[in-house]
């Protein structure tokens, strides 16, 4: 059975199911209880589960992430909501220096089954300090896992897996994904962490992406296949750490040309990492330099026209596809 629901609904339902399934699971965050969440992911949950399971916190990110880390050390399974990824900066010390390290620094005495959910992304005219994509900071840190679902089904499957994982997981959401709809399998649906998905098969070139840009890439690929007969493969990474080398490399071996499409800034980004691993493991399969399509490297402007000009998107991807698609395939269109 598949129900058509929004990404928001998929997250909400999964949180509720996990709260019902395991009494050690609790939600922690700003405005998640009485106000039901800035983006209404936790709507109704305080009423249903009470203030011990759905904990409204003061505006003090480092404090409540530290509290959640401590709770995880003692056997609870906290799911923290950071209102947007921009505020996670305040909790870096707890995440990077504590949650990520306690298990290995203290001889594996206690795992940290902690999930930190947080949306990233721009495009909502929230300006430079409220529109960032900082996920690579966490993907850089051993001891953390980073997942970034792009569809309602993956939102459900990855959230379940994250809650049941014994390591701290950064669960990346995106403001522009909350309202998208998609089929979500019923029941105890799980998506493994560290496993990418080929969301569309293709033979001419590969677009590798994650989170919202992965949804954009899928849309562009379908359209271009219809219009230009270009056969584009789309790889949705789903997990940034650990990264699924196998799926990426298999696709490169098939299409020989790669675009990495990411909403964050280009320098030191996801594209840089993927380009590096491809040249390392699949150099002889490359027919063209790997192309990175990312947002312009400026603090994001508030003005709508400037915001649109800054963020990467379908237009930039289409241009790059046209630039990099193999000549023999292009001339047929």
């Amino acid at each position, binding site marked *: 059975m598949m129900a058509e629901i929004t990404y928001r609904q998929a997250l909400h339902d999964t949180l509720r199911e996990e709260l019902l399934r395991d009494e050690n699971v609790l939600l922690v965050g700003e405005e998640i209880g009485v106000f039901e969440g800035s983006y209404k992911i936790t709507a109704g949950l305080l009423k249903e589960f009470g203030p011990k399971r759905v904990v409204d916190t003061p505006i003090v990110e480092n404090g409540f992430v530290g509290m959640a880390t401590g709770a995880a050390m003692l056997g609870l399974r906290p799911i923290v909501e950071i209102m947007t990824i921009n505020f996670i900066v305040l909790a870096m010390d707890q995440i990077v220096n504590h949650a990520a390290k306690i298990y290995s620094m203290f001889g594996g005495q206690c795992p940290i089954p902690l999930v930190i959910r947080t949306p990233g992304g721009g495009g909502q005219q929230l300006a430079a300090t409220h529109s960032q994509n900082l996920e690579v900071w966490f993907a850089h840190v051993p001891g953390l896992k980073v997942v970034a679902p792009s569809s309602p089904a993956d939102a459900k499957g990855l959230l379940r897996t994250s809650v049941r994982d014994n390591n701290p997981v950064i669960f990346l959401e995106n403001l522009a994904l909350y309202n998208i709809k998609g089929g979500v399998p019923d029941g105890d649906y799980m998506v493994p962490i560290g496993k990418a998905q080929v969301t569309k098969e293709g033979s001419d070139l590969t677009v590798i992406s994650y989170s919202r840009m992965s949804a954009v890439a899928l849309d562009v690929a379908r359209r271009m296949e219809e219009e230009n007969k270009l056969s584009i493969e789309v790889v949705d990474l789903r997990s940034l750490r650990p990264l699924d080398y196998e799926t990426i490399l298999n696709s490169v071996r098939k299409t*020989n040309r790669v675009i990495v499409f990411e909403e964050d800034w*280009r*320098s030191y980004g996801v594209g840089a990492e993927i380009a590096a691993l491809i040249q390392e493991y699949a*150099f*002889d*399969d*490359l*027919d*063209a330099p790997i192309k990175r*399509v*990312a*947002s*312009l*490297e*400026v*603090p994001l402007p508030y003005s709508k026209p400037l915001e649109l000009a800054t963020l*990467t998107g379908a237009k930039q991807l289409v241009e790059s596809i046209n630039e990099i698609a*193999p*000549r*023999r395939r292009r*001339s047929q269109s």
Partner: protein
Amino acid sequence: MSEISMPRLSDTMQEGTISRWLKQPGDEVKKGDVLAEIETDKATMDLEAYESGTLEKILVQGGETVPIGQAVAVIGSGSGAQNAGAEPAQQPAQEPSPAPATARTATEEAPAAPEPAADSKNQAPAAESTNVQQRVPEIAERSDGASIKVSPLARRMAEEHNIDLHQLQGTGPGGRIVRDDIEDYLEQRGPTPSTATPETAPAAPPQEAPAAAQAAAPAAQPEAGAPPPDAEVVKLSRVQVLIARRLTESKQTIPHFYVSSEVDMTDVLAMRQTFNASAGEDGVKVTVNDLIVKACALALEKFPEVNSSLKDDQLIKYKRVNVGIAVDVPSGLVVPVIRDTNIKGVRSIAREAKELIAKARANKLSTADLEGGTFSVSNLGMMDASNFIAVINPPQAAILAVASARKQFVPVDGQPVIRDMMTMTMSADHRIIYGATVARFLQEVKRMLHDPYSLLG
């Protein structure tokens, strides 16, 4: 110092061949001077200098084909002509040549931006100059012929198929040999076992082959169906390759059908004589073909479905009537276009046709001369052809083949009379045009040719 790169001279152009260089290294050039002639898929055009200086170096020799954007020559102050090897060091101070316009924009923007990074394509100044430095040695290597730019995949494929990369012309960025080029080559070579090497194939002792034939034979040809040693092998020009491809495509994808009609040309020929006699010594003489072209143009006005194209599932009916005339040239066949033929007088048509034919024979047609045709006329009347049928020139929907006018007995009022009879045959695209339409169209052309003064309106 700046590089001159292969320009994009038409919408369909992907690569160009340097026909010949008109300037040599060391020559002074002024902005606007013609440096070389370039043969594209459509025509031969001039490559002009965009700035004055000295032609320091030719990177692509006459006869060679390179993709658009690739550097073909270097123009400088003259100091670099002798020590060409020293140029990479000077390069970073110059504009990166493949996209001067973009590069200029980037440098203009840079001072205004508060942060060093301004644009994902031209990120930091450091990144930009690295790109330039990377690009330059590649070009230098290529011009030396010492090393070839090839993608890792293409290199691996070449090894697997026993291909000598020196035989290939790369079409990737900067002339890089990519998978496409290997696949092109493999297709050309045909399905041969990859173990067959050139040494094992031909039986004839190579020493006895005439030197000229050896030089002309493309290196790719020996394995399958090798021509006998006494045959002459001539490499097709780009235009001929294009003609071959277009005609094959036309015959294979367009369901042609044909309708013929005989026209009495006696009155046309008589009128033409009178008309040309009145033109005087240096006036333009109107040809029979000009009159037929005019008749077709007027008929096309009445039959817009003939003046059309099929594109996917859409019929595109053109408002303008642009008739192309097939011209026989040494390299094959070209079809320059007389625009708005329906509203031009026969003398204008005659003048234009004459100019286009002269340009075609001199290989001087521009892309503009060849684009936009909506119908074509092919005339073998001067060559004593009694009848022939033509291949449609896509994306057009029809073409009229015009044979010779010959004296024949025809019955007029029950009596045999000698008249000038001519057969014309129309080839039409049956996907969008039907038999009755073509027959009516021909009737209309015929009506006007029988009443030739209607063409002068």
